[in-house]
């Protein structure tokens, strides 16, 4: 996608302008791109134009959306080949006259047009044991220092748009890995729980042996596409890989743990 600043000539135009939008149309049995010539106005986003196509040219166009504010994570799609939220992609970011392709997420099965079946993600979520808190303090309360809260709060910003799952080549290009690779969103969920000072669970063997952490080759696409700008790779996946190294590969930290246990 050739992105330009929001001050491009496209945004300078006051009246409606026309754009050629190629939208994927199809279902589980197959499909192809269909070209729509449609008008758009200053300040609009790709989702507005998709809605205009739906209202004026293709009433049966399937598209999933909710908040139009980048917070529900429903309208994930691939715009000019890059995973993006349709509601957060301004039309002014494209060159005037440039065709725009809008396709459903590649990693998940197409249900209809731009709507994909993302149930893989919910199945993976079920495999992660929930928060297992320590007993409360003597006064019946639980306390956390702000500096401990901050680290896992970054991961709580996730809106579950599943674009990180979609872009991750481990499952995007290798469907067979969906059996044993949870994807960045759920490895991040494990990291969030593992780093929680009140959690007593041990999910490191699960991450390593069942949910595919070693499959991640840290090429950072999950971080690049995250609309919440969560540092998934640096703050969740690599720290989890380092905890695996602590547990399985580093004799010095193993020795340290053994000494602490003896005390």
């Amino acid at each position, binding site marked *: *996608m*050739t992105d330009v600043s929001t001050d491009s000539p496209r945004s300078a135009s006051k009246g409606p302008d026309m754009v050629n939008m*190629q939208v*994927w149309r199809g*279902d*589980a*049995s197959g*499909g*192809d*791109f269909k*070209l729509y010539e449609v008008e758009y106005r200053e300040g609009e986003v790709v989702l507005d134009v998709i809605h205009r196509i739906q209202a004026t040219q293709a009433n049966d166009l399937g598209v999933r959306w909710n908040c139009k504010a980048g917070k529900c994570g429903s309208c994930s799609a*691939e715009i*000019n*080949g*890059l*995973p993006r939220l349709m509601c957060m992609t301004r039309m002014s970011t494209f060159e005037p006259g440039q065709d725009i*392709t809008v*396709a459903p997420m*590649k*990693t998940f*099965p*197409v*249900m209809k047009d731009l709507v*994909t*079946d993302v149930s893989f993600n919910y199945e993976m979520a079920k495999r992660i044991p929930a928060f297992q808190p320590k007993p409360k303090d003597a006064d019946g309360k639980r306390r956390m*220092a702000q*500096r*401990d809260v901050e*680290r896992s709060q970054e991961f709580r910003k996730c809106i579950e748009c599943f674009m990180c799952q979609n*872009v991750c*080549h*481990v499952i*995007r*290009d*290798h*469907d067979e890995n969906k059996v044993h690779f949870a994807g960045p969103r759920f490895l991040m969920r494990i990291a969030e729980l*593992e*780093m*929680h*000072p009140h959690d007593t669970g041990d999910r490191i063997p699960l991450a390593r042996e069942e949910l*595919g952490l*070693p*499959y*991640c*080759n*840290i*090429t950072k*696409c999950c971080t*690049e596409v995250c609309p919440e700008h969560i540092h998934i790779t*640096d703050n969740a996946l*690599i*720290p989890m*890989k*380092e*905890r*695996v*190294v*602590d547990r*399985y*590969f580093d004799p010095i930290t193993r020795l340290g743990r053994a000494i602490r246990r003896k005390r």
Partner: protein
Amino acid sequence: MAVTTVQAGRGTRPAQNLRVDRWWLQPALTAAGLTAFVIYSTWSTFTPHDYFAGATVGRDYLSPFFSPCITNRCGAGTTWHLVNWWPFSAAILMLPFPLMFRGTCYYYRKAYYRSFWFSPPACAVPEPHGKYTGESRFPLLVQNLHRYALYLVIPFPIILLWEAWKGTHMITVSAAGSLVTSRGLGLGTLILFVNALLLLTYTLSCHSCRHLCGGHLNALSKGPTRYWLWKRVSFLNEHHMGLAWVSLVAVGLTDVYVRLVASGAIHDPRFF
């Protein structure tokens, strides 16, 4: 209009690259940069002369590729006479450690997986491999040795700082014809110091270092010193990619400079 038909079954779109930007530019530049460094460093390793600028040019500069020099083949540039039986280039003894550190570095892994192995070449661009097991099996399982590489490489920037300090020895010839050593600062000294500091910063910004400093704790509030360290290393870690490149270029340029001074091709300016 591009028309592509998918087969029935999986129901997903076919593997095709819909990106229209210059997605290939970054992996191409990365591949070019890393290839250039590998070629130059290999040449330098197997060109064991002019890597020490000594008394003949009035300086005490040792190329970082050969530091610490532990064989007597380095002549006056020898740091410690530990492996005097070694018949080959002294750099061969030292370079494997930084090479192992950089080779297993989380940033460089991303760089060469994308640029050389196309796994993937860029985000949402299909990779050409039929099967993928990532770092779950040998040989890529050895990427878990990055922690060991960190332990081994930590002394290197400190030794390079010491070598840079040695570079403040300015050697002149007295009226009587004898060699006189005095403290001073040449352009080469500054280059050696900057190179050592960049390598130190790159080493400290490592993800494993960040983890060891405090990232392994669940309750950072219980370890205020480690929290302080973790915050500082986290700041450096945000610039890990930049530091990886800058320090890589710096170490190559420092070698070039020392060789130019040692061979007499240029005169090292002295500030005082």
